[in-house]
């Protein structure tokens, strides 16, 4: 346990260990779901950009396989927290520890922009997600499976420029899923989509999360989206976790149901009050 709590840089993974994880995953593949995700523990995490202290001490434990949404006003540090967890930024102080040592392909990020390579066909774009396994013999088969998972099997040979915004984002999702990550971080992945596409994408995210059992972290502006998808909603304010709501509602959740609306109202009220208090800053 002590060893497990030590923070590991994502690329410093001994070979024998990673083989072990791979074998364990092969065994698990029969019974997808539970225990695939990684739990993570964050202790007194701080991040400053110059004089600007964005995160001022985050303490957080996320159990394996949980779906956590992180909401907050813009500039509150929610995206920074996500980038730290994904290893895209270095923390100024504090630690992030995963329950097991992680390999690069165990943690994946999906951004607001699809970030597809315009000069690669859809299938090659998905293959990019395999990381170091790109050269392996079954790379193409795995990429095809991931494309089927997001319902774009027939678009494998297309250029990204002919896809719609929602389809591009689904390709990005397939690329994130193809390495079968154990932690998936979403940085406003649906922010640029129209309302109807958003809803169907939310259902797709929920489905793949349930199928694959990874630990999901969703940063979003949209409180309705947060309560519809997550088991737990964190409100971040001024670089700290201000509120931690559990969402104990059965799935599939009916959009517009009274419980969801009530919870959404509570969280929104909290966010708005927070903004009034600090509006003269």
């Amino acid at each position, binding site marked *: 346990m002590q060893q497990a709590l030590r923070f590991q840089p994502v690329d410093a993974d001994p070979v024998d260990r990673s083989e072990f994880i791979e074998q364990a995953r092969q065994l698990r593949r029969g019974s997808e779901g539970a225990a695939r995700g990684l739990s993570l523990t964050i202790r007194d995490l701080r991040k400053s950009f110059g004089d600007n202290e964005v995160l001022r001490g985050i303490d957080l434990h996320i159990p394996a396989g949980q779906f956590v949404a992180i909401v907050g006003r813009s500039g509150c540090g929610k995206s920074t927290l996500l980038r730290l967890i994904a290893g895209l930024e270095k923390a100024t102080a504090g630690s992030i520890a995963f329950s097991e040592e992680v390999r690069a392909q165990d943690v994946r990020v999906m951004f607001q922009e699809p970030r597809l390579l315009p000069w*690669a066909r859809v299938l090659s774009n998905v293959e990019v997600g395999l990381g170091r396994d790109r050269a392996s013999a079954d790379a193409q088969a795995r990429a095809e499976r991931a494309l089927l998972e997001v319902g774009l099997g027939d678009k494998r040979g297309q*250029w990204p*420029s002919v896809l719609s915004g929602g389809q591009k984002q689904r390709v990005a999702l397939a690329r994130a899923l193809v390495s079968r990550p154990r932690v998936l971080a979403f940085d406003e992945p649906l922010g640029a989509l129209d309302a109807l596409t958003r809803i169907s994408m939310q259902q797709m995210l929920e489905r793949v999360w349930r199928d694959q059992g990874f630990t999901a972290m969703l940063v979003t502006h949209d409180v309705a989206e947060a309560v519809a998808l997550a088991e737990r909603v964190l409100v971040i304010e001024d670089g700290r976790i201000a509120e931690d709501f559990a969402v104990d509602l059965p799935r599939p959740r009916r959009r517009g149901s009274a419980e969801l609306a009530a919870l959404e109202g509570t969280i929104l009220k909290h966010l708005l009050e927070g903004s009034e208090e600090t509006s003269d800053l």
Partner: protein
Amino acid sequence: MSLIDSVSRVTAPKLPRVDGLIPWIVPLAIILIWQLACVTGFVPSRVLPAPTDVALAGWKLLLSGELIKNIWVSFWRASIGFLIGGSIGFAFGLANGLSKLSSQLTDTTLQMVRNIPHLALIPLVILWFGIDESAKLFLVALGVFFPIYLNTLHGIRTVDPQLIEMGRIYGMTDGELFRRVIFPGALPSIFVGLRFALGIMWLTLIVAETIAASSGLGYMAMQAREFMLIDVVVLSILIYALLGKLADSASRALERLTLSWHPAFQKQ
């Protein structure tokens, strides 16, 4: 792909062939009007020989083997000079786009040299190299260098940083990142440089060959001027136009081949 092909064939069966001819309507019309103007005596043949006379002069030169020889010499000079200048420009563009140190070391110098019109160096080049091949190759290489350099550099610097971050997240090595993200991203800009460079290549060669050469198309035109063979002068000019068009078409074909992902090169 094949579906799109067949659909467009069904809906517009004859259009593609007509489309290919449209660009040639204006040049053909000009030649026709030119011929008429000469035949009616509106334009004296001392000023401008009729297209038929030019064609006749071309035929004679073709038979004597002089035309082929001169075209070949010019073509060879253009390609070798282009290859030398283009590859050096490309190499510097890559180096300065990818490495800050390299850029700090050489970019300022290159920008200074760029502002010297390379044709202004002709007197110096003749003193250095005389009028043999190296003088022409040097000038062509120098002229071609800058458009390729500048556009390669610009292309690499403007590759979407979000895509580079994505590549790093997904564990691409530096080599892979270059091959899969940076180079394809810079390619459209590199092609702009290529087409500029092709134009400069012919321009430089013509000037160099008319001033200091003992063979080649420019030399052929200058010789003809000495002997008042105006039809040969016009012939040389027309051949330059055709060669320029040929180079442009070749680069366009290459563009279509490598940039098929680009929305601008996809079928409507």
